[in-house]
């Protein structure tokens, strides 16, 4: 990670951690807390979409696996909180691995279909297995997050925790994308044959990226469950999967800073559009269309490019596939 990114990260953390002082309304904090969780999911998904060139429509299921595994193990079976979260990440990652092994060996977008189906299955299991999951009415009484004796029992307290994890995820991911592994990932997403001929085991990398991507979804899900103390299947339907893919696209595929931008924007936007309740979805869709037509590479890289048109550096941290030229 270059010096520039370090400075941006410091500024970003500075802004984030000074926000609670400015916001008195708990509701605003709650929206931002959800944004912090979404960022974790989006970064994970963007690693997959921007660096492995694959799309997952099952991230709601990975998010849900994390949430339910944490909820059930800690509430029903009294497992310790943090180790359970790590265990959930590993289990979810393994599930993704099992889906990825057969589908990522094939060329083409088989992963989309497999994850789509997986999401539907998980959703049905959450509803039908009500002796374990609480069924459609949800799972309540999940313990709150706690470190030692420090209990995160208010939106304000938990804000710092969630954003610390969120920023930590960004930091590690930025590091990763600027390492040997990150270069290999960027290479394989752009030109698989050339990447293989440069000695990169592209298939294994794709599966590993998918593992990490799903594990990050699970992490966010676990935090979500312990934050709200109540979860229900509706949150983990295919619609959330589509929503997170949208956030990646709007933020900019392959751009991690874009993911932060996309996640925050599209988490806050529906809340801000509450005033126009019935037109909420319409406006949301409209914004999406405008972005995809005028900023096909994503809003964040698009704006960054426009601001620094003359330099040859390219977008801030975007290493994903370049947008296709017209006519190809």
């Amino acid at each position, binding site marked *: 990670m270059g010096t520039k990114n370090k400075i941006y990260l410091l500024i970003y953390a500075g802004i984030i951690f000074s926000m609670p002082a400015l916001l008195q309304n708990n509701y605003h904090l709650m929206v931002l807390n959800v944004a912090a969780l979404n960022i974790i999911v989006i970064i994970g998904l963007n690693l997959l979409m921007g660096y492995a060139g694959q799309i997952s429509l099952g991230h709601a299921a990975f998010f849900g696996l994390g949430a339910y595994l944490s909820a059930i193990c800690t509430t029903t079976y009294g497992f310790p909180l943090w180790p359970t979260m790590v265990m959930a990440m590993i289990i979810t990652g393994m599930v993704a691995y099992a889906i990825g092994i057969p589908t990522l060996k094939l060329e083409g977008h088989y992963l989309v279909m497999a994850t789509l189906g997986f999401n539907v299955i998980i959703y049905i299991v959450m509803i039908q297995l009500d002796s374990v999951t609480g069924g459609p009415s949800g799972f309540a009484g999940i313990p709150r997050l706690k470190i030692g004796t420090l209990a995160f029992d208010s939106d304000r307290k938990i804000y710092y925790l969630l954003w610390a994890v969120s920023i930590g995820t960004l930091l590690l*991911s930025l*590091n990763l994308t600027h*390492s*040997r592994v990150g*270069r290999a990932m960027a*290479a394989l997403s752009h030109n698989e*044959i*050339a990447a293989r*001929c*440069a000695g990169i085991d592209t298939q294994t990398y794709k599966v590993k990226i998918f593992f990490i991507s799903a594990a990050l979804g699970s992490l966010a899900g676990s935090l979500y469950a312990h934050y709200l103390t109540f979860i229900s299947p509706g949150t983990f339907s295919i619609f959330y999967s589509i929503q997170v893919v949208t956030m990646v696209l709007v933020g900019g595929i392959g751009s991690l800073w874009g993911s932060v931008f996309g996640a925050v924007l599209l988490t806050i936007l529906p809340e801000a559009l509450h005033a126009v309740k019935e037109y909420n979805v319409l406006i949301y869709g409209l914004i999406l269309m405008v972005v995809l037509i005028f900023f096909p590479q994503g809003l964040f890289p698009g704006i960054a490019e426009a601001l620094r048109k003359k330099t040859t550096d390219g977008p801030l941290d975007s290493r994903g596939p370049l947008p296709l030229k017209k006519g190809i």
Partner: protein
Amino acid sequence: MMPETVLKGDQTILETREITLRFGGLEALNGLSFSISPHQIVSIIGPNGAGKTTLLNAITGVYSADSGEILFRGSPISRLKSFQIAALGINRTFQQAQLFVNMTVLENVMVGMHGRTKSGFLGGALHLPGERREEKKIREKAESLLDFFGLLPKAGYLAAHISVAEQKRLENSRAMSGDPELLLLDEPVAGLNIRETEAMGDLIIRLKEKGQTIILVEHNMHLVMGISDRLIVLHHGSKIGEGRPEDMQRDRRVVEAYLGT
């Protein structure tokens, strides 16, 4: 037959035995056998569609041969995957430069060292000391390679933003960054002007002077005749001639293949 092969063993970097590769009904390579000795430039020439690029693709595992065997330093590589073959020490360039245009010139060369380096996900994400040392090492090596290929001033540019001649040299440096025992160059001067072609020819000769073994596929006969130690002439997937450049120029079958009868 047997003793001869064994004797040749230690003097041979690459050997193909009767390799055949079909695309549907078309025999792109037809029972092709040859061997490559170290520290030589061997050029593969032949009319368009003769199977030259297919041969490079078969050697590097992009395609797998239908029958026959390819031996690298005496061990078979025909069943290996591209990335394994690259890691063994066979690196290549492509007819049309296949760069990672979303990365900088420097990063392109650093990617080329992937098979020779080790840092993994954890080292990268946590930026561990070992990873830092490795990064520093490969960055320095990449810079010295870029210097050799006259690209150091462009190190920070996106690969998409440099000229075609520079892209060709960049691909060459990326291939060289893997310390290949065998370098495969697929039309390194295609699309270059005379001056750029001469510069590339000089670079290839300098690589050879460093002891680099090179298989060159090229249409530019001036370059081929000037720098090759040996020629292999392909026609319709078969070898129709092999020998020193000056002999090949006089070979009746070779001339026929090029000029038609």
